[in-house]
Structures are given as C-alpha cells and as structure tokens.
C-alpha cells in the first residue's frame, strides 16, 4: 500500500480580505492545506484547535489586541515547532523584532516568493 502523506497545514493571518484570499489560494494551488485568520486572536484560536499547523504566515500591521510581531512572539513561545513568516508593507523589521528563526518578507511580494519560502521552512520538496 502506498504511503499517503497528508498535505502540510499552513495558517495565513491577514486582515485585508483580497490579500488574504490571494495568499491562501496561491499556497493552496501549491499543494498546502490552508487555514485563515483575519486577526491575532483568531489565529491563536486556530492554533489551539489545530495541532497540525506547521507554519504561520502573518501580516504585521493588523488591528486588534496584537499586531503580527506580538503574535509571532506569542506563537514562538506557546508553539515552538510552528515556523513563522511575517510580512509588512510598512515595517522595516530589525533584529529582535521577530523570534530568531522567523522569516521576514516585505510587501509587495510575488506569489513565487511566498511558495518557495513556505516550502523551504516546512521542508516540503
């Protein structure tokens, strides 16, 4: 019997609807299993419910109780195995803003950039 591996689960956190849809669909088309949240609180709930999330792709500039930097810090503390990519069209991220192993991609980004970064960090060939 062939070994069936389930697709890698990725969480996208982005408040802008069209941008979120674009990223989610780009990654879904690349073979990932997608979950989406529109703010940090929703993202935390998703992570509490789904233990198989391997990577979180989050915007930094978001309304709500936490911005993406704070969210990244929290996720890195509570779910250390979850890999993190943060993006922003505003911030110039400096050392120490993000957890050490998190990746930063400035906006605007190309779909191909996102796919290759997610593949690299999740070890998906």
């Amino acid at each position, binding site marked *: 019997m062939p070994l069936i591996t389930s697709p890698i689960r990725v969480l996208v956190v982005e408040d*802008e*609807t*069209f*941008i*979120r*849809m*674009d*990223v989610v*669909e*780009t990654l879904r*088309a690349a073979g990932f299993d997608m979950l989406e949240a529109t703010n940090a609180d929703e993202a935390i709930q998703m992570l509490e419910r789904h233990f198989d999330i391997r990577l979180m792709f989050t915007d930094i500039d978001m309304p709500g109780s936490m911005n993406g930097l704070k969210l990244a810090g929290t996720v890195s503390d509570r779910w250390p195995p979850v890999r993190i990519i943060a993006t922003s*069209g*505003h911030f110039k991220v400096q050392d120490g803003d993000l957890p050490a192993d998190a990746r930063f991609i400035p*906006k*605007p980004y*190309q*779909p*191909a*950039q996102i796919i290759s970064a997610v593949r690299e960090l999740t070890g998906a060939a």
Partner: protein
Amino acid sequence: MPSEPRAVSQTATDSFLSSQDELPYRRRQQALLREFGSAALQTRDIRQILQQATELSARGLRCSYAKALEYLPDEKRLIVRAGIGWPAGTVDRVSLGADIESPAGFAFQTGQSVISNHLQEETRFRTPHLLAEHGIKRAINVLIRRGGEGDTPYGVLEADSPDPGQFDDADVDFLAGFAGLLGIAIERQHADAKLQQALDHEVLLTREMSHRVKNSLTSVVGLLRVQARGSESVDVKNALENAAMRVASIAQVHDHLWRGSKVGFVDLSDFVGHLCKNLQNSAPEHTVQCHSDPIVISADKAIPLGLLVNELVTNAVKYAYIDGPGVIMVDAREIDGHLLVEISDEGAGLPDGFDINQPRNSLGFRVIIGLVRQLMGELKISKNLPRGALFTIKFPLDPPSTNA
C-alpha cells in the same frame, strides 16, 4: 512691606545729565535703537536677538550690566536668557522670583516700567541676590510683551548699573523701545514655529496618504489575482494577471513615495532596482539586470516610467527567448535634463519591418505608446548589438525645483 510703587518717577531736577550732555546722549540712544531694529530683522535666532538687545541697550544707557529675563510659568520665576556683564554660567541658570516684591517681578506682574535709582536704600523692593552680589545701585525694568493678543508676556528686559547716577523717564522709553522690538521678534519666531508645525503635519499627511493608496492598490492586485485564478478562460486569466501586474507597478511607486525623503518624489535607482527585483522574481528563469543613476524624479514621471519598464521587460520575458533563459537589461541615465532609459535583450530580436503601431490590437504596445506620450518623450526601437531588441525611451525631467 513695599511702599506704594511709583513706577516711573523721575523729575528733571534729579537728572544727572547737564542739558549740554543730554542731546548727544539721546542721539546715541536713537542710533543704537535703530541699529538694533535693523539687526533684529537680519536674523530669526531669538537668542542672538536677545543678546543684541542687552548689549546695545547697555551701551545706550552707559551701564555695564543688562539682561533679558524669560518668565517660566511652571516655576513662576524669571530666568536669565541673555545678558552682558554677568559671569559665565549666569545665562539659563540664574533665575529671580517673579513676585511683585522684586523690581523685575513688579514690572512683569504689573506691566509698568520700574526705575530704581537707589537699590541699596530701596524700600519698595527687596534686591535680588544677583544684583546685590555685583553691587548694582540702580536699575530699569521694562516688560517684554509678546506680539499678538492674550498671551502671557515673554519676560523682562533689565539694565543695571553699579555706578552712582540717575536713570530717567527718557531712559525708560529707550529701554521700552528695545522691549517692543523684542516682542515683535518673539512673536515672529512663534509664528514661524507654528508654520513649521503645519508644514511638518502636511508632510506627514502626504506620506500617510501615499501609504494608504499603496495599501488599497495592493488590495486591488490581490483581488485581480484571485479573479484570474478563478477564471476558466485562459484569455481572461491572462488579462487579469496582466492587469494585476500593471496595478502592482503603480502601487510600487506609491510605496517609494511614502518612504522617500522628498515629498512627491522617488529615488529613481531605489525604485528601478525594486521594480527589477520584482520582475526578476516573476521570471526566475531569466536574468534581469538593472542600473540607474541616483536621481530623484517626481511621482508624475515615476508612475508612467514604472509601467513602461514593466511592459517592456514583461514583453522581453514573453517573446525574446524562445528556447531558454536569457538576460534582460534595464539602464536609466540622466543626460542634459532628460532621462534616457534603455531596455534591451539578447534574444531573437524583432521581426524585420516591425512597426509598433501596426499590431493595433496589442494592448501592450498601445499602453507603451500612450505612456511615452504621457511622459512627453520619444520611443526608439532598434536592433541590439550583437543580437536582440533595444527599446530606448527619452523624456524630459522636471527642472530642479528651487524650494528644496
């Protein structure tokens, strides 16, 4: 308890000047006041103006000490902001009580000018330490009002002398003339600061707006990509993807606009570099090389230019290299007030007799022609040596603005 203050109270008989000395003395005062008036117009440095006021008024009153005091509302004290005769470390450090029982405080609180010709025997006021330490015998204090209505006065201008003699009403008028000019200078500085604040705010708003425009356009790009993906038809898909790319290139100009140091302008080499990096990301099989002179251009020029580079590079990506990867070059140089932009490849080259106006249904070329016209520029299409196509765009840059 101070006696009833007689603010300015000199009789002609008290005057130490004989009438034959009086005229040259007053003329000299007039000349000094005039000198101060023109000097105060030369600079907007309030500290320097205060300093000149103390120096010139001391000369006019033949006294060796003078100071300008600013009222500090939180501490209710008058601090020395400029002066002559006082030891180093007095300015910005020594302050006097602003209560009505010191001569300066009285002038400040009541707005009346005060002559004290016998400070040691003064019953109206207590003598501040600073004056006692320097053996000051007589003093004039006049209020420095701010121009404009309703504001607390700035402080007090004071002339002091350790020598015996008398100050009189005409001396007070002389010193009050300085104080009046100081009030105008202070108000002018206040107005300057307010104007600067308004200008800073405007810059902030402009940047904020560019940032919002960029965010909205980025949202539109997302929408177009989502729609492209959702489309069954290849033509529709391509059209929507092309639209997404064009909007993305406009969004990029706004991204550079809010980051740039000069409002409404972008740094061309940053902008072109960024644009090429994005084009490279969307065409990883080819190599996009880019060079640009480090100049700033207005958003009005940068938006069509960005779109042009986007069209021509995308065109080369699609058509120049049929069987394999290749190099696409973007080069932007300033020549005699014009920007010369060359986009070249080393691919198959354009067919013989190629006429950009001919394939009238090609949106890409219609866009290119329209953008070149918008830039009031020229487009030249030629063979690249040794092979490939070369597109040259030349358009006039804005004359450098004078209000940098």
